[in-house]
């Protein structure tokens, strides 16, 4: 066999193998996601309530559910709040995570290990246990947060009820979500930082670049792919945040003013038993997620091609 022929065989195998390797991933996606998504799309065009849940045939209502939700001012308030919550939380998480990653690469090995263990502990804490502790910390009567803030001269936080206004409620939720997600971001960014070659950094230093210039002009562009994907994931996660909000609502108020999209859909579906509308809102959220991530996915694809 000539060398030329060998390359051709290799090439052909090279083309087929990736396709075969894709099958398991696609199969899992179709099995796990396909059915629920299709059910959801179908249901969003139906009148589907408790009667249908117990076996009555649902009736198709066309775009009725979508029209109802488009004209519901309360929903758009929830969408606005969720977007603001998601953007602020994701960017704060990314900022803090990056700072911690820079800290990790600057300190001694021992200090770094301590930091990493601490972050890992926060990351590995089950959400419900962590939430229980956070709710205690912010407790109106006996919470440590109020106790400490109250000791600051001139600050009266005795019995301040964090969960009694939507703003402070979402502030607490945001703090908790940031706390839970920072470890993931800092580990990912730290991994990215280890790939920045020392030679380049040294050269920049010799050329007289300040720390800020080195971060902005060299480190950031080099770890940009990591930052992009991490930010994308954070945006998606923070948009569909549910457990934290639900548990805070159990401790505070169930009222609609404290809803984000996740709890709004949950209430609409399983509690108010309007599965048709709940599906329609879910499809809307899917749309928002795609819109949010479109830019990133496109730039990621471009980078892949390059």
């Amino acid at each position: 066999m000539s060398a030329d022929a060998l390359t051709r065989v290799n090439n052909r195998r090279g083309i087929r193998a990736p396709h075969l390797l894709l099958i398991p991933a696609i199969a899992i996606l179709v099995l796990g996601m396909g059915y629920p998504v299709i059910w959801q799309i179908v249901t969003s065009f139906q009148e589907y309530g408790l009667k249908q849940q117990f076996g009555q045939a649902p009736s198709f209502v066309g775009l009725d559910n979508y029209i109802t939700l488009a004209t519901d001012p309360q929903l758009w308030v929830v969408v606005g709040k969720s977007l603001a919550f998601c953007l602020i939380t994701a960017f704060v998480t990314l900022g803090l995570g990056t700072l911690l990653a820079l800290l990790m690469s600057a300190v001694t090995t021992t200090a770094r290990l301590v930091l990493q263990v601490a972050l890992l502990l926060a990351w590995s804490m089950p959400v419900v246990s962590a939430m229980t502790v956070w709710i205690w910390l912010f407790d109106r009567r006996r919470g440590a947060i109020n106790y400490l803030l109250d000791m600051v001269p001139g600050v009266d936080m005795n019995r301040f009820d964090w969960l009694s206004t939507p703003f402070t409620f979402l502030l607490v939720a945001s703090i908790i979500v940031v706390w839970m997600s920072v470890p993931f971001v800092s580990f990912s960014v730290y991994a990215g930082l280890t790939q920045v070659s020392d030679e380049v950094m040294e050269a920049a230093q010799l050329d007289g670049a300040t720390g800020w210039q080195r971060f902005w002009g060299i480190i950031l562009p080099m770890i940009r792919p990591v930052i992009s994907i991490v930010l994308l994931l954070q945006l998606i996660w923070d948009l569909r945040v549910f457990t934290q909000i639900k548990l805070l609502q159990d401790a505070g108020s169930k009222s609609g003013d404290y809803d984000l999209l996740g709890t709004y859909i949950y209430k609409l579906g399983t509690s108010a038993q309007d599965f048709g509308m709940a599906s329609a809102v879910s499809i809307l959220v899917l749309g928002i997620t795609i819109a949010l991530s479109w830019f990133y996915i496109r730039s990621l694809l471009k980078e892949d091609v390059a």
Partner: protein
Amino acid sequence: MKRKIGLVAAATAALVVLAGCSTPAPAEQSADGQNITLWLMGGDTPDTLRDFLKTEYADATGGTLTIEQQDWSDALSKLTTALPDSENTPDVTEIGNTWSPTFTSVGAFSDITDMYVELGGNSLLPSFVEVGAVDGANFALPYYFGSRYIFMRKDVWGAAGLEIPTTLPQFNEGVVKLKTDTQSGFYIGGEDWRNGVSWIFANGGELAKKEGDSWMSSLSDAKTIEGLTQLQTVYQDASLAPVTEADSTPWVNINNNAATGVPEAATIIAPGWAHWSIGDLAPDPKDDTKTVATWNDATFGNFVLPGVDGGAAPVFAGGSNIAVSAASKNQAGSRELMKIIFSEEYQNMLGANGLGPANLDYASSLGDDQFATALSESAANSKLTPAAPGWAAVEGSGLLEEFFGKVNGGGDIPALAKEYDAKIDDLING
């Protein structure tokens, strides 16, 4: 490979078909050896009663009874998703009395009309039987009833020179006088509609009315507005509870606070069984991280919330119904469990534990102490929420918490009532 997939597909299809036509036939099925699951809501049913049910069920059928406790706060969601699914449904479930019309009208429960007389018939609490019946057929029956009455600090009321009020206006004025910067005259959460609704009922108002075949929310009725106005004043001028607090554990506020030695509330409203948690606190001899409360008649008192012109105000009729899931594969075993629950022995056990027995023939088991008297007196006058098909959705949506929270937060009552009438009307007819 292809043949295998074909087989799997055929088997799946067969299962679907079989599941579709497996309508339970209680007459032919035997309860022997059926393992069944019972869902109980919250911790109201004490352990001794649970053990009794398990033992009796095993004796009667040889099968195992598994009791799973569900949280009230998530129960509605869990019932909605589990009951239609024969693989995951509880066989028998306790269900909030106010949710019974919703689930009964969609066919979630088995028809047990043929057992109605055997289980107690006309002796069963009528208002609870009614919410579990459709067109004369019985689906859900009462499990237990409770009702809410007032607990007070005699020392605090006495120090202010106040007597036990005999009319609602006296109560409203009294609790306002008792409020200080650190102590609620009357502790009630802003979103606590289940207790707050007593002021609406007492003034002759309703949450909803039936007109012809359909239900209409009636928050804007003059009498409802009057009740809400009184409640708003009481909340604002007598309670230090957060406006976002709903049904909670108010008894922690009437006991002495461990740190300050004084109570944080002079008065609370709570279900009757709360009296086990009210009293002088002492360390638990069995577990020194806990305390036990011993009722002290010198410090604590209880009375029924008085009506506008005296007598007892109609309070929210607390309690539960119980029903067999229509999707359950173990209909015979489930019916056997229903017989045990409605037996004389179990009904008396309910009463002895302070839960109003479903069968009123055994109401004397509640005893004749001050708590039993208050329970009977307030229950006799209690009212249920509207038996509308969509009522569970109204409760589940959190609209009532939202509405009461906004009213008690100082909102404009007629405007809020109009807004929430419209929102509730969307859901109330199912």
